[in-house]
C-alpha cells in the first residue's frame, strides 16, 4: 500500500468532493479516509488514499490534481504520508 495525503484548501463550493473523487476513481486510487474542517474561514479537506494500483507517476497525479483544483478554485496538494507520520508519530 502506498499512502498519499491529498489536501484541498479554499472557498467552499458545490461539487469539490465529487470532482476530486471522480478523478481518483478514474485512476484506480482508493480512498482510505476522508475528513474536513474549517480553519480560519477556509474549507479544509484531507483524504488519505492508496496510490498502489495507480498507473500514473506521483508527479503526474500531483500536477493533474493541482490543475483540477485550479478549475474548481481551490488549492489541491498531494504529499506522501510519511512526512506527516514521521512528524507526528514516534
Amino acid at each position, binding site marked *: 500500500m502506498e499512502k498519499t*495525503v491529498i*489536501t484541498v484548501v479554499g472557498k467552499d463550493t458545490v461539487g469539490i468532493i465529487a470532482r476530486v473523487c471522480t478523478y481518483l476513481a478514474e485512476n484506480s486510487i482508493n480512498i*482510505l*479516509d476522508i*475528513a*474536513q*474542517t474549517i*480553519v480560519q474561514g477556509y474549507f*479544509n479537506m*484531507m483524504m*488519505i488514499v492508496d496510490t498502489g494500483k495507480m498507473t500514473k507517476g*506521483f*508527479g503526474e497525479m*500531483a500536477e493533474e490534481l493541482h490543475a483540477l483544483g485550479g478549475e474548481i478554485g481551490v488549492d489541491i*496538494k*498531494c*504529499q*506522501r*504520508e*510519511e*512526512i*506527516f*507520520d*514521521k*512528524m*507526528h*508519530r514516534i
Partner: protein
Amino acid sequence: MINIFEVVETNEMITRENLDVRTITMGISLLDCIDSDLEILKKKIYTKIYDAARDLVKTGEEIAGEFGIPIVNKRISVTPIGLIGGAACKTIEDFASIAETLDEVAKAVGVNFIGGYSALISKGMTSADELLIRSIPLALSKTERVCSSVNLGSTRTGINMDGVKLMGEIVRQTAEYTKEQDSLGCAKLVVFCNAPDDNPFMAGAFHGVTEADKVINVGVSGPGVVKNAVSKVRGENFEVLCETIKKTAFKVTRVGQLVAQEASRRLGVPFGIVDLSLAPTPAIGDSVADILCEMGLEYAGAPGTTAALALLNDQVKKGGVMASSYVGGLSGAFIPVSEDQGMIDAVEAGALSLEKLEAMTCVCSVGLDMIAIPGETKASTISGIIADEMAIGMVNQKTTAVRIIPVIGKGVGETVEFGGLLGYAPIMPVNAFSCEEFVSRGGRIPAPIHSFKN
C-alpha cells in the same frame, strides 16, 4: 492513522512559517583523484564529482515534490583541496585553477555552492596548505560557487597563531579582489576552530578525511516554526518555554531525517548526519532574532540575549537528537547578521554590537557570521577578532567560526547588499585599538589543560 489537524499543522509550518530543508549536501572524497600532473588531477576531480552528483538536484526536486517540503539548496562538499592539490600545485595560480574546475562542475550538475576549497592547519601548515591559503583571494575572485574554509585551531591542538595572522591578511585581500561586488568573496570564506568533518552548511562545508567515499548530509531549518510555537506560550515559565521549543525542534528534525533517508536511498549514497539547525534567511518570519524577541526581549542584543540564545540552542539539540539517528555538523541556532532580518533591525536600532555578538557565539552553534565591517579595518584587527573567536571555541570545546566582510570603500552608517540568501547588512563599527604586536608574535597557543583527557 494521521488526522486532519496533524496534516493542517504540518502544512501550516511549510506554507506560513517557512519550514524547509535548508540543504542536501553530498560529501565526496577526492583522495583517489590525487595526481602529480595538474591537468590529470583536474580531469579526475571533474569526472568524480560529475558522476557522483549528476542526479543530486533532480532527486532533491523529486523528494521536495512528493513530500511537499521545499528543499532550498542542493550542494556538494569535497575533501579539503589543500590535501588534494599538494602534489600537483606549485603556484597559487595552479591551486586557483582547481577552484575553477570545482566551479565548472558545480555549474554542470546544477548545485548552488561547492565547499572544500579548504586547509586544515589547526597545529601547523604544510607548504601546500600555505599555498592554497594564499590562493584563496584569487580563487574566490575567479569563481562563483566555490566556498573556502580554513580550520585554525581545536581544543586538542590549540590555536595556530601563524595561521590566524595570515588569515587576517587573506580576508582583507579577498575583500580587495572582490571589491567591485562589495567584497562578496569574504561571504564565501570562513575560518573555524573545531571544524566538523560533516557540516552540510556553507561556507564552511568540507568532506573530512574520516568520512566515507560519498555521503549525504542534510541541514534542516525552521526559525519561523519555533517562533510561532513560542508565541503560543507568552508569559509562561521557562519550563513550559523549553518544552515547547524541544517538541517543535523534534518535529522539524524528523522532516530532515526523512528527507536525508530518502535522498540516501534514491541516490544510493550512505546517509551521514542531520544537522539540527535553526538557519535564518532574510525572508520575513524566518529569523532567529525574532525567536529571542518572542521570548521577551525588545531586540536581539538586549541584556538577557545570551541566556535566551543559550536555552534556545540547548532545547533545539535536545528535541532534535531524538528525532534523528545520526546528528552532526554544526547543530544549533545560527546567528548571522546579514541573513536575518531581526538581527539587521537590532543592529540598525543600536541594540546589537560586535562585542555582544561575540558573547552570543559562546552559546550559539557557530560564531561571528556574515558581519560587515568598515573596509579600512586593518588585517591585524581582523586577526585579533579571529583569535578571540578561536579562543572561545578552543576553551569551550565547541565549533566557532568567523565570516566577516571588510567592505572596501564603505564605512559605518552605510549598508551592503549581497543579494539572495546572503541578504544585506549595515556596516558595524569595530574596536579600533591595536592588537598588532599580539598577533605578530608568531607560533601557536597551546591546547587548554582540560583537553588532556587520555
